[in-house]
């Protein structure tokens, strides 16, 4: 278990909840170009995401993630449900969550903010924007770790 507030970590553990392998790889490639060191864990649907956090089954030995990147449209349990379950759980609600989605629907944005998503990002339409987003995440992280 790690606590970003206690010590400055060398490697940040990020859980990416994303079903599209192309997006997974793109995210991985984008993080390669950042200055911070990131260990990216990937699960493909909402149910797996919750298993990961609760260390069920094959996730028995994974760390508690420092941040979650959550796609809204997922198979089985979709991102909205995952979000509300995490944010109502005393154990996990402190984990920062960034919503990554293609949806720019107003109701989705409201829903996610109402469930205390820390950040809502429309999936960037090209690589440059994607790099920008990853940089924003990096900034966001740095600001979070500096929180007392």
């Amino acid at each position, binding site marked *: 278990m790690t606590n970003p507030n206690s010590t400055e970590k060398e490697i940040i553990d990020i859980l990416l909840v994303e079903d*599209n392998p192309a997006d997974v790889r*793109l995210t991985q490639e984008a993080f390669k170009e950042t200055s911070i060191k990131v260990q990216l864990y990937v699960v493909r649907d909402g149910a797996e995401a919750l298993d990961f956090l609760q260390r069920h089954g094959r996730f028995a030995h994974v760390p508690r993630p420092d941040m979650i990147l959550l796609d809204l449209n997922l198979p089985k349990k979709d991102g909205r449900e995952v979000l509300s379950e995490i944010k109502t759980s005393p154990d996990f609600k402190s984990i920062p969550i960034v919503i990554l989605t*293609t949806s720019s629907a107003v109701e989705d944005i409201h829903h996610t903010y109402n469930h205390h998503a820390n950040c809502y990002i429309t999936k*960037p*339409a*090209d*690589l*440059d924007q994607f790099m920008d987003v990853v940089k924003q995440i990096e900034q966001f992280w740095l600001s979070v770790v500096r929180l007392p």
Partner: protein
Amino acid sequence: MSKLEESTTPQQETVPDKTATLRSRIQQLEAELASYKESGAQISRFANQLRTAADVSKQLSSILDREQLLKKVVALLKERFRLYHVHVYLLDESQKVLRMVAGSGGVGELLRVRQHAISLDTVHSLVVRAAREGYIILVDDVSREPDFLPNPLLPDTRCEMAVPLITGNRVLGVLDVQDDRSHRFDQLDVATFSTFSGHIAAAIQNAYLFEEQRRAETAVRRYAERLQSLHEIDQAILTAESPDNIARTAIQRLREMVPYHRASFSSFDYQSGIVHIFSVTGSPEPDAIDGDYSLAESQEILELVRQGPIVGNLADLPSNLPPLPALADYGVKSVLIYPLVAYKEIIGTLNFSRSTPDSFDEHDVQVVGEVAAPLAIAIEQARLYEQVKQHAQTLEEQNTELAQFAYVASHDLQEPLRIVISYVQLLERRYAGKLDEDADLFIHYIVDGALRMKNLINGLLDYSRLGRQNQSLAPTDCEAVLQQVLSNLHLTIQETNAIIHHDPLPTLMADSMQLTQLWQNLLSNALKFSETQPEIYIGAKRENQHWLFWVKDNGIGLEVEYGERIFAIFQRLHTLEEYPGTGIGLAICRKIVERHNGRIWVESEPGAGATFYFTLPVKG
């Protein structure tokens, strides 16, 4: 028989002796006295008769119904003059026949019911002679009169007087009086009846005039009623909703003027080949004749009504036509089938039936005809209106579906496109210069194409979103909107060194997001389609209930023939190399303006710049 005799000469005698003279004188005096008494009696009788005549005349003058009048005449005459029989003949419309119109007693009534009449050609008739000659014909003893026609119903007639009824120079008829005593009528009677006939004739003439007036009044009243009914039908037609309801209402209203046993409406649909029939009988139960029939099977009826309305008996119509045998089961005997013609085509028929044969007459046909003409037009218009409404609804549904489709399609297209763009860019980033020149060029083309597609999809999304979203109208400061737009475009404005002036802009009811997009699209066009330093003028002018805005540039302009086309989606006038773009911007502009109930257009000449005008209502 004799014509009127002059009164008899008084007798005179000469006596030789005094006694005889005196006796004679006494006799003379007695005779004179008797004569005097007689003439006194005559005078008092005459006075009496005159009084009777005056009394009768007075009674007659108040009776304006001809039948009543003559009934009274014969009754009064018979009673007051103690006559055996009295009756009255009147010349009928042909003026060739004397028709008995009133007679005293049971015999008189019997003769009247039998429609007793005498032709003016009859040679041996006292009545005819009186009518033809215009004089009173008196027969003292009918047994000696060859022209007397004995009537077996009046066996006791001994004398007869036929008195012509004359007013002006016209003979109206004959008053015929008979008695069972021969030589019953003397000069005085003749004189009395002569006077009397004048009164009767005048009273008859009065009654004629009154009847005529009453007929005219009745006609006027019936016309007024008919007009009122027609007016009511018109009103009903106007407020009815469907073609069937219009027909139903009209048929129901027609019942007052054309009473019917049953009625129905047949409507012809030539496209589907169906005759739809429904009954208007007032009964809630379904009717045996109601339903759809084949137009082909009804061809015979169709051919008949093409000639005009069918008036006749059910038995005379072709019995193989589908609804007709069922009508017979309802006891229908006669029918009136009236074609409804709209725009030279028979669109249906109004069908009326009665349970008595030969029952419909010209009047019925005329009344139905008056209703049929406007009814046909109203039904046809209601049909057309229903069709238009249906088309409009279908169109609206298709439109919504299309807008939904465009939105979903463009939204879902974004996802794979995002992957394509990102990876091609990653490829470019990592491998540019490391493969060969061709690879670099190909990658460039892919990136370029994919980015253009992204712009198109975004444009399409914006466009379809306009149709889906509700507008949020609020007081919008156009000045603020313009500042926002200028700030959004400041890079381009700097690059092109553009000069932009504008009039003071108003505040009006609008969707500010959409207004921003509208002005941004128009301004970026003005900046884009320019070969020199852009000079742009933004104008605004209040015109009654709306504001007129314009964006005038000094750019390349366009030919006026394309003025309408540029507002259609995906329409472009230039190659991508000349001026990049998606062909959606102006389509979005038009949609925004039209959703604000305004109008947008362009005025331009090639090389002389373009001015885009649009209007927005002051109150949204």
